[in-house]
């Protein structure tokens, strides 16, 4: 076998791993869309917000320190503690639940029954609002996620060396896979399993699925829509936290995180807005496709095709199958 083939194979595997990261963001979109019909453009910014909050809480930053300093002329920055990662994650989840409640209470409660496109634009506004609040709270400088994810030390040492060696013995070509990507895949698998278990085996999960199926019917059997929507936004906030930590560990917590998260949109279009497996498969296809395209064609036409490949692929795909791979068939009536 020629080396190019193995190299392409390695690119594919790395692409699949990157796809997992896209799928993580896409999951949050699907959850909210299924339950409330809101296409949440702010999911990427939520990931950014969650990651920034996590880093801020962990390092004991004082929220709105810059703003307070500017207004009152003080000079405060840190509480002066350093929290354990687990505790910081728990506190961040609390913040995300509060955010979910606020979003529901102050925004979408007043927009019930509006056209989907109005809701979509409202989430664009929410994205701006959240981004501004996040920057005001924690400052806009690039932050490092200081959990074991970043160095890949959550995993046993030398695991990628082991993969390298094993594949070398098998094919005569060693594969290199980033530690972080392996961690991301494992975390994503656990997350999806947990989500499935939650929605299949808990009361709240069943209520969530009922609302996703039919609002009216769910209401009539006594499911509180308001509660379920807050729940769904909280779960989406938690998914955003996981995605934000993963992306943050990969490329630092900064504004461009919310742009990377935009990549989740073509993933969704490919997989269909209403399907969790679709989000994962879509993510894998996009991740693999853009790496392979860059490898075979991109370098010949100037590189950096990753910026647009996903969108164009989704666009072309949609022309032939408007509901995506796994989406429900779109039926329109007058």
């Amino acid at each position, binding site marked *: 076998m020629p080396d190019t083939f193995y190299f392409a194979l390695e690119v594919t595997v790395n692409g699949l791993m990157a796809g997992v990261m896209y799928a993580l963001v896409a999951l949050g979109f699907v959850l909210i869309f299924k339950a409330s019909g809101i296409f949440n453009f702010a999911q990427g910014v939520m990931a950014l917000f969650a990651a920034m909050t996590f880093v801020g809480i962990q390092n004991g930053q004082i929220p709105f320190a810059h703003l307070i300093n500017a207004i009152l002329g003080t000079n405060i920055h840190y509480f002066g503690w350093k929290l354990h990662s687990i505790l910081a994650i728990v506190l961040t989840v609390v913040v995300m639940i509060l955010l979910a409640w606020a979003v529901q209470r102050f925004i979408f409660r007043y927009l019930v029954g509006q056209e989907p496109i109005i809701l979509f634009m409202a989430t664009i506004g929410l994205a701006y609002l959240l981004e501004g609040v996040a920057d005001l709270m924690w400052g806009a400088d690039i932050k490092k996620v200081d959990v074991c994810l970043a160095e890949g030390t959550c995993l046993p040492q030398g695991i990628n060396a082991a993969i390298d060696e094993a594949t070398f013995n098998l094919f005569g070509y060693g594969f290199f896979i980033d530690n972080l990507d392996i961690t991301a895949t494992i975390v994503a698998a656990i997350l999806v399993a947990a989500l499935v278990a939650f929605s299949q085996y808990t009361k709240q999960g069943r209520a969530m699925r009922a609302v996703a199926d039919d609002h009216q019917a769910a209401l009539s059997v006594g499911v509180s829509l308001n509660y379920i929507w807050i729940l769904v936004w909280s779960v989406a906030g938690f998914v955003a936290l996981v995605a934000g930590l993963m992306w943050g560990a990969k490329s630092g917590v900064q504004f461009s995180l919310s742009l990377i998260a935009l990549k989740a949109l073509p993933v969704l279009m490919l997989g269909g807005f209403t399907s969790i497996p679709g989000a994962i498969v879509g993510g894998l296809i996009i991740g693999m496709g853009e790496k392979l395209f860059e490898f075979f064609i991109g370098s010949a036409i100037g590189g950096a095709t990753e910026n647009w490949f996903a969108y164009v692929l989704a*666009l072309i795909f949609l022309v032939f199958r408007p509901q995506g791979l796994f989406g429900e068939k779109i039926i329109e009536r007058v």
Partner: protein
Amino acid sequence: MLYREAGDFKTSYVADSQTFPIAFDRWRYYAVLAVAFLVVPFLVNDYWVNAILVPFLIYSIAAIGLNILTGYCGQVSLGTGGFMAVGAYACYKLMTAFPDVNIVIHIILAGGITAAVGTLFGLPSLRIKGFYLAVATLAAQFFLVWLFNKVSWFYNYSASGQINAPERSVFGVAVTGPNVEPWAMYMICLVFCFACAVIARNLTRGTLGRTWMAIRDMDIAAEIIGVNPLKAKLTAFAISSFFVGISGALFFAVYLGAVEVGEAFGIQKSFIVLFMIIIGGLGSIFGSFAGAALLVVLPVFLKLLGVDLLGWPTDIVAHIQLVIVGLLIILFLILEPHGLAQLWRVAKEKLRLWPFPH
């Protein structure tokens, strides 16, 4: 008192179907035009033109363009920045390839080229709807910006990757390049803005506008009563892109003079123009102006208030601006989905009855 139709008798169909049927409206419109064309050019200085007036006029053109597509035809587009880039680069290529031709013709041609590109990216709209389409137009945004960044033919192989507007003049007065007078900049933008607004207003009043609105309100129903969706959607994309292209060409050639595509025409530009029409009012030409004015003045005002008056750091003011814009969008969508234009309409209704409401 003044603002009512009583006593204003129409004796011909032309008079009956004019844009401003109420006399007071008409005179107000003429007065605004007179001030804009005859008074403002003699008063402006460099700061006013560069910080407020020219961006306002150029964004108004872009907002009118997007409003035709989104407000009148109901197709949400997030590719405005990309289409503005097409206008800018088309204008640059034309300006450098045919230096003897008048820049006004170049800008109009740049609009035409953008219309062709817009139609191409509008083709999927026949199959894809709603936010699927919104995301699909992101493809245009990212692909076009990448294209102008990577293919050096577009920027004439310059080492910096930037495009710089060469000096061109209209009637012997320089309008692009380093030696342009503020009032000349203002005038060329004003003329284009005025022409675009008049064309857009009349298009949306006519058959074409009605077919767009039918498609927006419910495309299947429109199809059943005999509106051709192919024609309606593609004309909306073409005409919208034409205006957006003109605004891009002006933005590059007249306003900035030198452009780096990712910075000037990135995705943020698409969002800003979309926000302008949401805040201003979807489906209203006046709303395009109102939204553009608000979002151009807001940063200038915040900078004056925050940085110059209170002495806060610029980044905090920039973040506060994000929060305010986000809040404005949400508030307008909740309280007044038809934007500033609707507030204006309500105010006019009140004025008709003033001072004796029922």
